[in-house]
């Protein structure tokens, strides 16, 4: 009967497709269900503050210099001596990112000497006007208490909690520059977040940042 089995061979595919119809689906029903993003996901940028409310950005323009898409525009200015914006000589006076040009490579995060710019998990940034795609400092900089700002209101697509997630890329590259960072946690604490909890292989620096953690 092997000739019979051979003859049926080409038709076995029909059984396969029929069977597959009753299998569970692999599609994620976005936006009702969202997939869990990797910890080091490259999403929208934020400009961080120290726990005391000072801006981390010192207006050095290294991020703009390294940006392969040339989407970052920064202009530094001298800190006013009586009311300094950042703990240093200068601060980021103008900070703009053109999100239509940005390729989300994260090199700005790597270049930043003060960990002022980091990436979050939010990627739903569609706009109806090209001008709206240029994020200014107003939108990038977090509130003094550490709450991120966003030009659009929260909705089924925009989960503002995602803006609070993840300095993962920073963790991988800061200080030692090695993905398998070992030793003490070496990044600076941020408003709201405080000191980030250590990753695998790291020990807690137990920095007293004056902020009762996230």
């Amino acid at each position: 009967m092997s000739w019979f089995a051979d003859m049926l061979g080409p038709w076995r595919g029909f059984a396969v497709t029929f069977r597959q119809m009753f299998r569970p689906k692999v599609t994620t029903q976005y936006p009702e269900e969202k997939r869990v993003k990797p910890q080091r996901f490259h999403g929208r940028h934020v400009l961080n503050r120290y726990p005391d409310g000072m801006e981390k950005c010192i207006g050095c323009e290294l991020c703009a210099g390294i940006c392969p898409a040339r989407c970052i525009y920064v202009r530094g200015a001298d800190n006013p001596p009586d009311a300094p914006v950042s703990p240093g000589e200068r601060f980021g006076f103008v900070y703009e990112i053109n999100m239509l040009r940005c390729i989300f490579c994260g090199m700005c995060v790597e270049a930043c000497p003060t960990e002022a710019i980091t990436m979050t998990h939010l990627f739903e940034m569609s706009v109806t006007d090209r001008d709206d795609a240029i994020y200014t400092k107003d939108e990038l900089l977090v509130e003094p208490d550490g709450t991120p700002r966003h030009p659009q209101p929260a909705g089924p697509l925009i989960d503002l909690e995602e803006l609070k997630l993840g300095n993962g890329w920073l963790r991988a590259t800061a200080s030692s520059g090695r993905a398998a960072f070992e030793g003490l946690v070496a990044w600076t604490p941020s408003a709201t977040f405080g000191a980030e909890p250590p990753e695998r292989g790291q020990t807690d620096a137990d920095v007293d940042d004056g902020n009762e953690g996230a």
Partner: protein
Amino acid sequence: MSGLELLVVSGIKVVVAFAFLVLTVLVLVWVERRVVAFMQNRYGPNRAGPGGILQTLADGLKLFFKESMTPRKAQFLLYIAAPVLAVVTALLVFVVIPIGAPVTIGDTTYTLQVTDLDVGVLYILAISSLGVYAVALAGWSSGSKYPLLGSVRSAAQMISYEAALGLALVPVIMFSRTTSLAGIVEAQSGTFGGLLPAWNIVLLPSFVIFLIAGFAETNRAPFDLVEAEQEIVGGYHTEYSGMRFAFFFLAEYINMFNMAALTATFFLGGWNGPLFGPTWLRYVLPVIWFLIKSWVVVFLFIWARGTLPRIRYDQLMAFGWKRLIPVSLVWIMLAMVAIGVRRFGLPWA
């Protein structure tokens, strides 16, 4: 029936048939996308309306509001005539398909088909041949190379498989002794020994050949070389957009449903099926049987598309001319012998 009454009744039938076909296509496109998606462990369109059933309507509206582009080198008159011709020929095939048992109201009996032609089978073959013109003209008048290649392929394919399609129907006609579709359905109304319905599917080789040729005739997978995206972009309708493209799309799916309805009519007993209940139900049930049978064949079409890879062009031609046509010729001869024996007895008896 007086002349005016005939006119009114025919008019109503035409409008109903048109509405039925357009509605069928709306559902058909959605069903195809959903079924193929399920076979690929996806959901398919499930957003517009309950279960996504309004997706086709949304797509149609989108196409309606889109710009219809015309290539500079197009032969304008033929370029805009081709999609119309495609839809018209697709609609015309449906005219002779009976979708239900004749309904008697008062003294008049109305057939549930737009018109019952005595030469129904020939009419169908003739009209579907005309459909090739739409494809050929569309490809040529676009003034572009891929549409031309696509239309040449398509015309060659449709002409080749039309021979097999027609030959597959010869035994059906011989056993039914009529070329009227209503007559063919009527001929399948009995049973074999009171058990099995006397459907023409017992002419299994004819059924198989007709189905395969039907796949090819409607340019569907695995014979969809006409639209082999990897090779010739969209085939003959590459240069069409907006409503003109929607016309080709509509024609394609009407043709698919027509082919399924014809398969049901020729081989699955058309609207024949068990009847019961009050009088009105006896008129409704045949329509339901017809629809169920047609949609089963539609499912076969979709199933084949979800399963089989596209075959190569030379394989397509070789299969048509060297396999299907000889097999159908042999089968016709066997059928002739069977009829002769039934009528005159065995030659040595």
